[in-house]
């Protein structure tokens, strides 16, 4: 599924809102104004609304259903999307390890925050890299420590 769009430079608010939403969905930016997402009913609907939002903000947007011409290109795109979420998981793992050193109160708050973050990343993880499992284990380890010091 491809979204081809163009938005005026100014005002910047709708540009940023669209960029944030695409990032949350895990879209792969192919070119400036061309974003790819795996085709499923959720992504299709979300991109349809986003296209409408872009047009309301005086931009242009079209939605395409496409496929790459070669398997190699497809593998490359999949690998690229997996690498992006892998780095997000890696940052989360580092945060979880760092949180182990915190005082019990902030450790508990970190756990809640990191669980939400893990859920967000999993929502845009279409081609799970090994880091997904590692991130889950890092959160579980943190949860165990939080549990152990609970009164």
């Amino acid at each position, binding site marked *: 599924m491809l979204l081809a769009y163009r938005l005026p430079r100014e005002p910047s608010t709708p540009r940023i809102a669209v960029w944030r939403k695409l990032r*949350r969905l895990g879209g792969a930016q192919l070119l400036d104004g061309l974003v790819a997402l795996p085709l499923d009913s959720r992504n299709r609907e979300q991109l349809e609304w986003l296209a409408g939002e872009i047009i309301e903000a005086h931009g242009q947007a079209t939605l395409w259903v496409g496929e790459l011409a070669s398997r190699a290109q497809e593998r490359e795109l999949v690998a690229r999307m997996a690498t992006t979420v892998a780095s997000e998981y890696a940052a989360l793992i580092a945060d979880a390890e760092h949180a182990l050193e915190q005082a019990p109160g902030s450790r508990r708050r970190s756990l809640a925050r990191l669980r939400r973050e893990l859920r967000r990343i999993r929502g845009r993880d279409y081609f799970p890299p090994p880091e997904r499992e590692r991130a889950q284990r890092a959160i579980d380890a943190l949860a165990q420590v939080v549990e152990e010091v609970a009164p």
Partner: protein
Amino acid sequence: MKWATRAHCHVDRAACAWLIRRFLDPDAEFVFVDDPDEIPDDATPFDIAAVELSHHSGECSFEAFLRQFDLADPVLWDIAQIVHEADLADERYDAPEAAGLDVLLRGLSMIRGDDDLLSLAAPLFDGLYEYRKRAILLGREPS
């Protein structure tokens, strides 16, 4: 009155249909279309791209209904935040109920057709309305 929306309803359309039957048109008749071209001439379309009662300025269709029909009930606006997050998950609002509502309706839509989904979702939204109403009156979560 006749109302038309896209087939294979999820949370936003189910919430809108509930709102229509409870607050706007108790005898509402719903038509589900696969393509906007199939909307009957005598039906009011909602949650379909480029119609009035749909997503605008980053808001979901439920919010569009509240604005369009001047429904100022704070309980409905409270539910609107939950529906918004269940539908769009853009974290505009803090609505922890949204994730649960999303899963419940997504699951229902896997085992039932649209008419059934709307009938099953109605008491769910009635209950949500009652709960949020009590929460607002009490100033805390009701037990």
